[in-house]
């Protein structure tokens, strides 16, 4: 990757692009940070004292909603994240999410979808058995099976990925990875700053 980019003819334009790209990245980080802090403040206005687990949950939820909000519902994963929150939301969480997004969340009831998954799995297994197993097929078939398994795993990882086809799944994954990176960066810097502050205050 580095070798490719070292050509001089592209370096000047890429340097300019890099500067403006980084500035735009900074904008997204700031937007995420603002929304995140907004959510946290709403949380703390609800209950002053929280246990560590409650705090962690509040922090994570606010961060997830905030990073989904930076996409403003243009991507499927952001819509799925917001839908998850609205489904499994308590009072404070719900209000925080609504404030971050700036809109009301629809009231939902959690669906019980577990039994259907078992049925689908059983039918798939039966189909595999009927096709004949124990025989090592061609390498292409093995590769296909690997790809299929991993695609399934990826679908589970990306929020809202279960109903996507391969093509859209890859697109969503791209966007999701970029947003996760932003989230991790901002959270890490905040955590480092907070710990340093803590350290400093203790050493005083």
């Amino acid at each position: 990757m580095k070798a490719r980019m070292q050509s001089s003819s592209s370096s000047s334009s890429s340097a300019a692009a890099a500067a403006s790209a980084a500035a735009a990245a900074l904008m997204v980080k700031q937007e995420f940070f603002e929304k995140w802090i907004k959510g946290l403040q709403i949380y703390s206005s609800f209950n002053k004292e929280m246990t560590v687990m409650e705090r962690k949950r509040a922090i994570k939820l606010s961060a997830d909603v905030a990073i989904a909000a930076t996409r403003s519902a243009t991507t499927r994963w952001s819509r799925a994240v917001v839908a998850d929150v609205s489904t499994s939301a308590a009072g404070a969480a719900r209000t925080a999410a609504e404030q971050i997004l700036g809109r009301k969340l629809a009231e939902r009831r959690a669906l019980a979808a577990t039994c259907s998954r078992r049925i689908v799995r059983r039918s798939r297994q039966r189909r595999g058995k009927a096709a004949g197993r124990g025989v090592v097929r061609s390498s292409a078939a093995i590769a296909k099976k690997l790809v299929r398994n991993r695609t399934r795993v990826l679908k589970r990882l990306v929020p809202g990925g279960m109903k996507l086809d391969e093509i859209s799944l890859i697109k969503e994954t791209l966007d999701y990875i970029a947003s996760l990176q932003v989230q991790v960066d901002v959270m890490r810097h905040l955590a480092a700053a907070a710990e340093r502050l803590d350290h400093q205050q203790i050493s005083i």
Partner: protein
Amino acid sequence: MEPNVEAVQPQFRSGISGAKPGGMGCVFGDIHGLIPGPPETDGTSFTALLELPPPQAVELLVKEDFPAKPMPPPIFPSNIALIDRASMFSVFASADNPPESTNILSASSSMKIDSVKQEPLESENQRNSSSPAVSNQSLKSIKRKEREKKVKESSKKSKKVGANEASDGSGEQLPYVHVRARRGQATDSHSLAERARREKINARMKLLQDLVPGCNKISGTAMVLDEIINHVQALQRQVEFLSMRLAAVNPRIDFNLDALLAVESESSIDNSYLGMFPPSIWPEGQINGSRQQQYQQPWLMDPPSMGRVDDTSNFITPENSLLSYDSPANSASLHSSQLKMEL
């Protein structure tokens, strides 16, 4: 892919308490300090764009490359990949640059040897564009160019592309994609459709490969998918750990940002002032202490990802930090206009 430590020049003045919603505007303006400036890339647009969510990447690339036309500049493959990725995301994220994105695609696609790969991508962009006529013309011109580059079979099929790509709100769809069969390949509609689909998937996989670090050398969809899965899982795990760290480090989660700046000045992230923390009494000091020991373990196992920035961080039991401060109104605070950012 992680941003290095930046040297950001902050200057601040006092007076903001973050608890007030009115003061929030100023505080948020000062976030510039906390979040480091543009990460140290290798001076390339690519790694910069790696930090970048796609919509902004689209705008950047659009602004960058549009003046460079009409003749396609000598774009290197990585740029093409970026432009492709950016143009792809323009489908989802912002439909506001359709003419430019299609033009960019036409410029980049003329550099590509594989014409069939481009056409599905272009068609996807054209779906959201309000000028299908323009893009059709550019498509035709590209096809003419590429006819000189390789020998093809003369058969030409058209097929419908509406089904797979669900657009968000634009109802415009290009009904047919003209796909050219290559030499020595079957020309029935099924295999053509499958091949177009396969090439679409491969193009996007390539973009994903560029995004995930360390995927460039791997060949083969299964391995690349493996790496992608690992990367996503690692990022999600990091989010969990970081939220636990943040929960443990302070008793109240509404970060009062003033003190952060003061701390940051001495840190390796240097000069990113933000604000002061609510240095308040730890009401649950006893509980926190025991729990912190438990939570230290998973964090200590996650050093590689968090190593660089946090060399001074320790896990300190909160019982020691029984300092109580007044509201940091009198402490150092900041003016947003004073903060400078390295861009």
